[in-house]
């Protein structure tokens, strides 16, 4: 067993403890104890391997589990709050808003919440995958983009020469449409749209967060990323931990010269 495997095994015990105690009193000292680490070492290793501080993870897991009951049932919110070890409905409401951008009562009234931001349970296997992927999130300021291309399946395959894929979300599609994806090439600032393909789309610029393999970020041959893992990491970890929310209209997948995905960019609101 190497150092990484030992660390993953220790943190897995803490992750398992969280899942078994979502409705019970649990503190970070007990999580560190399950990992057989000192508090200092545990906080560092847990944060490195999961992207969450241990307390942040515990609270997000509780809110994520409670959210399902909030929107699907009729139980009083105070009962749900107390069941998940929140000391008051106000504390639960603050945590809920921090996770989802709306209050539990608003979510109940709408019968929905942005479940794509909910922190699903992290398993030791997931933490291992994340560590092995080398994925890192970085803030970016994305320019407005004009993209010439064509409609595509979000999962590919894409036409040769495709540099960027714009994944639009249903109901808030690009240029009035609701496409699954639009794949093509970003036009230069003064570059006119080509005669063929005739279709183009515009993506608004603004603050964003990008996931890529950090060691390869400035390399001409950037490493491929696992888009599913990157998506999970950005929406459920990096963006929430930073206290931000996704804009929710599109996301961008940049492709490398070989057509493989090298970066996932999620525009942020505000």
């Amino acid at each position, binding site marked *: 067993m190497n150092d990484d495997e030992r660390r993953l095994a220790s943190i897995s015990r803490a992750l398992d403890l969280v899942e078994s105690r979502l409705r019970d009193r649990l503190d970070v*000292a007990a999580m560190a104890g399950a990992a057989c680490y000192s*508090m200092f070492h545990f906080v560092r290793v847990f944060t490195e391997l999961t992207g969450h501080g241990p*307390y942040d993870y515990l609270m997000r897991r509780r809110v994520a589990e409670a959210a399902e009951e909030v929107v699907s049932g009729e139980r009083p919110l105070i009962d749900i709050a107390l069941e998940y070890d929140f000391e008051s409905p106000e504390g639960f409401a603050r945590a809920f808003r921090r996770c989802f951008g709306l209050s539990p009562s608003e979510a109940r009234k709408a019968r929905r919440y942005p479940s794509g931001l909910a922190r699903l349970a992290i398993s030791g296997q997931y933490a291992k995958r994340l560590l092995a992927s080398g994925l890192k999130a970085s803030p970016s300021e994305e320019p407005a983009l004009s993209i010439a291309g064509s409609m595509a399946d979000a999962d590919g395959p894409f036409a040769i020469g495709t540099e960027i894929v714009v994944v639009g979300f249903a109901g808030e599609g690009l240029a009035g449409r609701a496409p699954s994806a639009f794949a093509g090439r970003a036009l230069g600032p003064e570059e006119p749209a080509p005669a063929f393909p005739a279709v183009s789309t515009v993506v608004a610029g603004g603050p964003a967060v990008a996931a890529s393999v950090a060691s390869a970020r400035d390399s001409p041959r950037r490493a491929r990323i696992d888009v599913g893992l990157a998506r999970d990491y950005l929406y459920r970890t990096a963006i929430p931990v930073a206290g931000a929310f996704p804009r929710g209209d599109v996301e961008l997948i940049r492709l490398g010269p070989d057509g493989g995905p090298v970066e996932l960019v999620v525009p942020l609101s505000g």
Partner: protein
Amino acid sequence: MEYRLERARPFVLVGMNFFGNPFRSAGAWDEDNEIGSLWKRLMAYLAADPGAVAALPRGDPAWFEAHVLHPSSAVNGDYEVFIGAETAEPLASPAACVVKVLPAADYAVATLRGDEMTPGWEERLAADALARYGRPLARGWGLQRYDSRFKGLGDPGSAFEAWSPLVPPDTAR
């Protein structure tokens, strides 16, 4: 690793501190974690005003990075990181700095060089303590001491000292 025991050693340090999870921002998207930011903040302050603090040894101070648990640490994992140097004139410290007093304790001191600085050294020291000193480490705080021997993490010619307080003899079992 080289080991030694420092008996009944108190500390009066002047420097700057941070309270929270120092790795949270790096886990999100900053290059630096809060410990790196704290070092930069202190060094920038001292570079701008070299005589601001009476750090010891004079002219070539040794820097201590202290990690200190607070009562709330057990609940949420947040703790204090303090970086500073020993001082004989704590009351002359500038308002931008804080003074950290650590009570006298017996310290297990280990010198770590090059590859020995890889993550996990704290746990290796803790595992060795009982056999080496006859008592476990007290986990309420710990110190790392950096002087001119430190060239950077992983540098084969680099070294720093880990100062880990031992549980007092009368309470150790």
